[in-house]
């Protein structure tokens, strides 16, 4: 293995020291969560990637909802994110409006919520735990489209 110690950053040096000292073992639930992640795979799905949404000028506080936008070749998922009492609410719009029978799943590593789309392509889910989430759009005639995993913390 090639070594380039001259360019090791501080964090990597510290990580190596800690790893070798064995004094900061991985908590069992971290390993269990990493294994469980595999159950969330969606073979064949297209990933909708996040694109930067312009932040309204002069807005500094977190009072208003946060807007997220994910784009795949064939559709766009827009999300409005708000938080109440430490839980997260999502209101979404899929465009162009998908065919009838399209189902949306909002997934976290711990739970999955299913929603039928409104005739205009809207959906909402409330009370999600903070942390990682992803939205899947299951279409009757096509492979699913899934948004890139995103972390929300109140």
């Amino acid at each position, binding site marked *: 293995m090639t070594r*380039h110690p001259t360019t090791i950053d501080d964090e990597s*040096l510290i990580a190596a*020291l800690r790893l*070798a000292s064995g004094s900061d073992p991985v908590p069992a639930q971290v390993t269990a969560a990493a294994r469980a992640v595999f159950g969330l795979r969606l073979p064949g799905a297209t990933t909708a990637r996040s694109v930067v949404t312009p932040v309204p000028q002069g807005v500094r506080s977190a009072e208003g909802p946060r807007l997220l936008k994910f784009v795949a070749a064939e559709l766009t998922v827009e999300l409005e994110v708000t938080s109440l009492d430490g839980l997260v609410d999502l209101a979404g719009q899929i465009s162009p409006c998908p065919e009838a029978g399209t189902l949306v799943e909002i997934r976290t590593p711990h739970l999955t919520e299913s929603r039928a789309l409104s005739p205009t392509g809207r959906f909402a889910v409330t009370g999600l735990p903070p942390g990682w989430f992803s939205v899947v759009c299951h279409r009757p005639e096509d492979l699913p489209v899934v948004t890139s995993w995103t972390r929300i913390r109140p």
Partner: protein
Amino acid sequence: MNTQSVLCGSEVPVSDQPTIEAVLAGDQAAWDALVTRFTGPLWSAVRAYDLSPADAADAVQGTWLRLLESLHTIRDPDRIGPWLFTTAKREASLLRRRHRGERLVADPVDTGHARSTPADAGHVHADPALAVLTADESRRLWQAVDEMHEPCRSLFRLMATAPDAGVHQLAGRLGMPSGSYGPTRGRCLNRLRTMLTTREATP
């Protein structure tokens, strides 16, 4: 020193091509093999950013979620390690930055990240973070620390063995003002880097 926990050494070639093919085919056991090999080093890597156990767990889980959605673009097993470390360090650094302004935000997601990193990680062992997280390198590091003068030697030992101690507590145990801890740590890390570089030049 417990070298049992060091699972990232080149002597444990788990992420070989059959493993990756099996993961792509949906084999949970193959995925578990990746998790077993890399979770320890990934945990250490994100904890080095002074993250709490909860935030570190979040960063590690996010790293595995990203691998899951990008796996088909990183079929080369040699790229998996560098890719995981690049991703984990990025998640950890985002989380640390967030501590300075807690509010409801989604972290800026992987605009270009997931697509560009596999290509960047093409220089297989060029990531020094990965190189240093091997059993050999870790032993070398601690040998170097043992040769250092105070306060560096004690500082590194404390830092490694008390991962959740705050700056105030660490400074107190080293008998220095809290304000001196950061700069001293920086100097010690630079010195350690220099020692490793010198050794590299004169094997």
